[in-house]
């Protein structure tokens, strides 16, 4: 009729099997996964390690060697045991704080983005205010005011200061999903707001939520170590940050006791690098447009394009050279 039709799938086309099977994980994804898993294993290995992190096994800054692969710290504790315990603490704080921050951020963003109107103005106003205050200052103030800081209270404090940017990202996504036709269909089917938010909006932004969560975990681990390094960390517990705090306090850098400050630094770097890389590679999985083809596929595609271009050029030249009804010659020279 008067408009061109959008192509419609053949009625008889075989139904595709599980769509999730076509996930094409990149090398980047596997590298980041190995890094993250290695750090997690390091944390868990502490549970099996014979020496406890509070056990005094030597004196101040004993160099590595003699059954102590990473020497001792300022208290005479085994650095490796402390490192393992600290990694575990940091990961727990990261996961708990990341979950809290993502939960608050997704909830605020979903409601603001989907409902819109004055509610969106209010929620986003609050979000922007929280975002404008440097969170490290809020963290420090709250940490100081807490009578006793445990790893759980620290995780909660980090979680409730880190949500705003997740809320903003989710709001943008949710308000775009809110204009889709399937939302109208759900409303016409009698679905109420909570059901629409959970069933019709959340699945569409879940990939963003997962990526935000990964970034939040990495951010929370860094925030914890920053606080702990300043001496505001969980009392009576080892974490990567407290390890650095004591190393600095007892002149490890000045005395050249590299084994006291380098291992936690390296683990922290690996953790944040691994999570950031994981987030970037998840982005590629969820957003096929960012996916870079494998070398072989790219070569094949380039060859195909070159061939098509050559055929096109030859096709344009042939009629210009004269009325030659023969099929297009493969080489452009043949027409002349």
């Amino acid at each position: 009729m008067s408009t061109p039709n959008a192509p419609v799938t053949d009625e008889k086309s075989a139904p595709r099997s599980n769509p999730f099977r076509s996930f094409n994980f990149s090398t980047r994804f596997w590298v980041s996964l190995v890094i993250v898993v290695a750090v997690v294993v390091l944390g868990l290995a502490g549970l099996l390690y014979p020496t406890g992190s509070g056990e005094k096994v030597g004196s101040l800054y004993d160099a590595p060697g003699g059954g102590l692969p990473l020497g001792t710290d300022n208290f005479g504790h085994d650095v490796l045991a402390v490192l393992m315990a600290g990694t575990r603490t940091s990961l727990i704080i990261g996961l708990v704080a990341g979950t809290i921050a993502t939960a608050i951020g997704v909830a605020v963003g979903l409601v603001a983005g989907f409902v819109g109107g004055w509610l969106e103005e209010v929620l986003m106003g609050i979000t922007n205010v929280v975002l404008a205050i440097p969170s490290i200052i809020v963290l420090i103030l709250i940490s100081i005011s807490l009578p006793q800081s445990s790893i759980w209270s620290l995780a909660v404090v980090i979680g409730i200061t880190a949500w705003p940017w997740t809320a903003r990202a989710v709001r943008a996504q949710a308000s775009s999903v809110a204009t889709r036709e399937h939302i109208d269909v759900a409303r016409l089917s009698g679905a109420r707001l909570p059901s629409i938010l959970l069933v019709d909006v959340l699945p569409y932004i879940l990939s963003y939520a997962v990526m935000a969560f990964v970034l939040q975990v990495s951010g929370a681990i860094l925030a914890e170590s920053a606080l702990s390094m300043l001496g505001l960390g969980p009392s009576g517990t080892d974490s990567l940050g407290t390890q650095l705090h004591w190393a600095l306090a007892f002149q490890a850098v000045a005395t050249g006791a590299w084994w006291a400050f380098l291992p936690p630094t390296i683990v922290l770097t690996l953790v944040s690098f691994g999570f950031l890389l994981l987030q970037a590679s998840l982005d590629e999985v969820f957003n096929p447009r960012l996916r870079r083809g494998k070398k072989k596929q790219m070569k094949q595609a380039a060859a195909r394009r070159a061939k098509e271009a050559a055929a096109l050029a030859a096709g344009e030249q042939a009629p210009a050279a004269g009325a030659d009804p023969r099929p297009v010659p493969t080489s452009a020279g043949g027409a002349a």
Partner: protein
Amino acid sequence: MTESATGPAAAPVDDGGGMITRSEAGTPLLSCRDLTKTFSVAGGSITAVDSVSLDFPASSVLAVVGESGSGKSTLARMLLRLMPATSGTITFRDQDVTRIKGQELRSYWSEVQAVFQDPFASFNQFFTVGSLLRRSLKLAGVEKEEGDHLIEECLGYVGLTPKEALHKFPHQMSGGQRQRVMVARALMMRPTVLLADEATSMLDASLRVNVLNVLHDLRHELGLTVLFITHDIGQACYLADRVAVMEHGVVVERGSTEEVIFAPQAEYTKRLLADVPDLRGSLKHHA
């Protein structure tokens, strides 16, 4: 396709008949008066729908025709109460429904249903057809046990069976099947008004006729009042009793299908009609 539907269909048809007799022949079932929608945009405002007044008599098919951007979809969304009207009133069964919300709005939706333009975007891609249809059960006011019967019955109207549809995800079906599932979903509420907003424009020609025929049959079987919104005056001619032509948010011509198609008054209608491709003419031209 009506074969499978005859058994369970008997009760709701009676129901629907009862509903229709309630609204007397003279007064329209659904109507709008001076309905206006203004969107504020940067540096001014756009009036998408300008003082539109339309009546929808029970069991009739009214087509609203106009080109893209003429405000017909905005009109549809306002009539469905998915978008607030800037001014004007919408009346359903002599009740003002322009500002209702909550439970009242849901009971309005149990009588006024819609099928939308894009059979791809109308689905939540994460859930099966079965869960899409089951969501409507509460609004349809049936219990779980009856639900399966209702679903089977409504799929029957559009020529689908539960076995071939319910467990499927939207991407496992063709465009025509999806659009028919959407019609089935709308029918679950046993509506008295069905609004089809460009419901056939993204389907290819044979599927389009298929969906048009489904709408045509439903109107006869269930006594549905159909509001058919299209840019294609040919489809309007095929299905509608009455046609209203919209241009830039204003109804420029209205009347019975014969009057509008064969004796158009407005310049715009004549132009729309001239744009309908004439197969015989074009063949002669090329021969």
